[in-house]
């Protein structure tokens, strides 16, 4: 087996609480192989984003990584010094944000921002960087890219901006890409196009992708593997097909049950979960489809 692009072991992220640190990401481990898309689904506050931010050590205090081992493309992330982190972020690992309107600086042209992103990690002249930026915009499917460089973010539509953000993330050929709700702010048709684009880029550049979403339909279409998170823990994991066609954990069942179709009764009860994760773990242990198969084979 080849070494995976991302390895996370026993990650614990905490925030200080009144009665000591609260574990918002609670002892999770996972791997992503190059060229693979791992989807993390779960409700708000389940620790999806905090898990992703851990890979880049982007937490703001008082949130901190308390324990665990994180390796991204051969780099032990937790041992990096501040200065090394700057070189690591954007170069080895890049991130696409939920809201492209706020992820770009409103007072600078997108050309300016792209050129800067390129020049952070590559010592090239402005002119060369500008040419690269034009190529990148063309690669993400923006027409008349040379003209668009002089546009300000407010002059472009959401879909175009997300393409710009993707171009920026791809500017240094990262090995790992984090997409945090990357298509949530876009309308459905734009969403589909942006996802197609991402798919192409992932295959072309052989990147490992951590795809965070609460849109189950998108997750089932786009991801190779799925992890369901609840209350800081992974409650079920497997390939997209396994998790969506054969959900085992009560939380996953509830999550999938929350999807609406038109023929549903309006006042049907909504499946609920125990609030206390300890109780839930006692009722239903976490499910790993890979391990299940082994068991069933025996």
């Amino acid at each position, binding site marked *: 087996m080849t070494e995976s692009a991302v390895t996370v072991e026993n990650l614990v992220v905490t925030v200080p609480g009144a009665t000591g640190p609260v574990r918002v990401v609670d002892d999770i481990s996972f791997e992503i192989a190059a060229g693979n898309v791992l989807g993390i689904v779960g409700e708000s506050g389940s620790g999806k984003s905090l898990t992703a931010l851990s890979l*880049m050590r*982007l937490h703001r205090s008082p949130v901190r990584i308390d324990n665990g081992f994180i390796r991204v493309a051969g780099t032990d992330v937790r041992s990096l010094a501040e200065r090394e982190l*700057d*070189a*690591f*972020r*954007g*170069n080895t690992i*890049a*991130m696409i*944000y939920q*809201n492209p309107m*706020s*992820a*770009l*600086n*409103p*007072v*600078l042209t997108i050309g300016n921002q792209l050129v*800067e*992103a390129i020049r*952070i*990690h590559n010592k090239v002249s402005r002119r060369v960087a500008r040419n690269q930026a034009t190529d990148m915009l063309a690669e993400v499917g923006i027409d008349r890219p040379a003209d668009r460089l002089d546009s300000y973010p*407010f002059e472009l539509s959401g879909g175009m901006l997300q393409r710009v*953000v993707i171009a*920026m*993330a791809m*500017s*240094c050929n990262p090995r790992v890409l984090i997409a945090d709700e990357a298509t949530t702010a876009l309308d459905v048709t734009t969403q589909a196009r942006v996802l197609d684009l991402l798919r192409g880029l992932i295959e072309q550049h052989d990147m490992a992708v951590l795809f965070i979403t609460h849109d189950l339909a998108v997750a089932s279409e786009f991801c190779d593997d799925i992890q369901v998170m609840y209350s800081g823990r992974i409650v079920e994991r497997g390939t997209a097909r396994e998790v969506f066609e054969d959900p085992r954990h009560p939380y996953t069942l509830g999550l999938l049950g929350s999807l609406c179709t038109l023929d549903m009764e309006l006042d049907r009860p909504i499946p609920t979960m125990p609030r206390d994760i300890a109780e839930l773990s006692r009722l239903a242990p976490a499910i790993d489809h890979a391990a299940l198969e082994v068991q069933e084979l025996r």
Partner: protein
Amino acid sequence: MAEALTLVKEQARAQGVRRRALIPAIILIVIVAACVFGPLVSPYPADALGVGLPFAGPSWAHWFGTDDLGRDLLSLVLVGGQISLTVGLGATLISLLVGIAWGIAAAGRRGWIDTLLMRLCDAVMAIPQLLFALVCVAAFRPSVISLMIVIGLLMSPTTARMVRSTAVSELADDYVVAATASGLTRRRLLVSEVLPNILPPMVVQATTNMADAIMLEATLSFVGLGIQPPDASWGTLLLQGYAKMYNSIWMLIFPALIIVVTLACLVLLSDRLGSAFDGKKVMR
């Protein structure tokens, strides 16, 4: 639909605000232009004695009247304006340069450096401005340059505080996190990402500072520690007019009037620019 409607309303409001900001701006431009070009076209050189009768009231020949030496008061006000405005502008620039560096350094570093810089701010602001300026100007011989520096430094803590608070709130924005995620170092983040976003409130701050600076210069000159004769500024004219108040009130009224109008325009401009930029923030 409702959203589109509020957007339209918002735009109309912003446009109205912008139009209203135009009026004080135009008056200011007229005053500045008059001070710069007026003396060139005036039939009476400001330093020519006896171009009219001493103590003559306003007339068609001398719009603002004449002073005790028969000089044309309008020419004096315009020439005095050159110095007043120069000091105002210079002090404003100094206060912005020092204040922005000060505030950005505090916002960027946080921790004990932040505390130190901001307490230093409080300390400077706690000293009565006029008293501090008097002592400084007295210590370093009053001149246009020393006035600019003293007044500029006096106003920099307020600017620094403003810069810091704006920068701190900008630093919490998504695009800053995004820039950090793409590997921007802290220093470049502050200079090339945060700084451009701080400029709009700084324009507002600059107009306020300018008003303060002109006021402070006039005050210092009025008590005799500002611009020294034979140079004249609005403050020194006010001082001379004050001495002759009982027999020629216009010598007091016109310099006072020009100061009031200039300050009022600057304050109005700063206020309206402030709400215009605010509207932009809402629209974004």
